[in-house]
């Protein structure tokens, strides 16, 4: 399960949440959405962002939702 964010939401949530933890939304293939794993909601390290995260839509993602691998892999 993933938290699905708009670009504005991703920009607002991106960044360090403690000295050694961070949230970095990952872009999806459609170019308009970003994702965070839903497990970040349960991580105390991100407690300061929990209220904002909890209000955002969640859904399952398939391989087709992610960008195609770069030719260099």
């Amino acid at each position, binding site marked *: 399960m993933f938290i699905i964010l708009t670009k504005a939401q991703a920009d607002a949530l991106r960044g360090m949440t403690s000295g*050694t*933890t961070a949230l970095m939304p990952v872009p999806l293939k459609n170019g308009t959405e970003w994702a*965070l*794993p839903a497990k970040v909601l349960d991580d105390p*390290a*991100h407690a300061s962002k929990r209220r904002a995260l909890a209000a955002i839509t969640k859904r399952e993602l398939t391989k087709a939702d992610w960008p195609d*691998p*770069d030719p*260099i*892999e």
Partner: protein
Amino acid sequence: MFGRLGLGDLTSFGASGGGALGADDEAVTIRQVATVSAAKTNTTAIVGFSQVAAVGIETDPAAHYSAIATVTAGAIAAYTNASAISQIAAVTGAGFAGYTNAAAVSQIAAVGIERTVGYSWTNSEGSTWEAQCDLTGWDDGFRGDVDQLISDLKSGTVNATNTYSGFDLILLMDTPNSSDSLRYLNAPTLTATNVNSTAFTATEGFTGDGSADYINTNYNPSTDGSQFTQNSASHGCWQRTAATGGGYLYGFFSTSAEGIITNATPGGYGPNAGTTILNGTTARASLVGLTGINRSGSAARQIYFNGVSEGSDTASSTTLINKEVAILARKTATADQFSNAQISLWFAGRSFTANEWADIHAAFDTYRTAREAA
């Protein structure tokens, strides 16, 4: 009034009970007791005094405790005034254990009591690292394993090489807690970052979800590379659980690629070789263990698995790339090529010879074996 009581008077008074002592006399009487007890160095008297202090009659205990040379465990346990404790020159071990005031503890340590307690590091680098760490879950067994690792990297158990100073960074990702598993052993003011809640297991390492989490080393070869240079460079990692489904064990990609990929043979990009991959020659069901890639010259690369060279080429070196290295993914403008492997350690440094790679593997293997048994 007892303002003129001497030692004999007080002893007699104590023995016969305190009912005759009025409230107005208590403070004066206590100060007289303090003076007498110091002269007698009688621990029983000190215990009695601490009890008086605890009920609040004494208003300036520090001044009167300054003469105390030794204190029993019971007295320390009952006493809570930091400034007074700081005056104590010697404390028994049991008494110290019962005390929790930080300021006072620092004073006691300064006179040498605490030095007899705790792990004694052979390598000061371990002590320096510990001083920066969270310490949750640590025990002396773990300290010993890390101490042995540092010794082994300094003296090499196979070929007697010293590689420790050749690393820019060594990240032990399998410590007893996640915080310390992000703090560099040989640069303990620096840390990596757990991005998107990568799962951590004590004594094992970090495990990727293969889709959106990773560890950012915060190491950028072009700005942080000291040992890692264009024509002398290396990086590697210890994979504890093999990845399924591809991805990078670590690396980055911009105009050039760096890192180790999931493959049937050991394989990877860099150091400083554009987009030219270097693969080993021996296919395996999994690559659990130490995989590293090395540049020993402007046109000489080698790939190592568990301390043995498994391939080489003559790819020309390129300038260092301005990009941070991710673990369990490939750092790009964001990150991609996520891996679900479990990684126990990562490093970057100068070029190492074949003999040095054998020593590096032996050192990490000894350490990992010890951690698995912990």
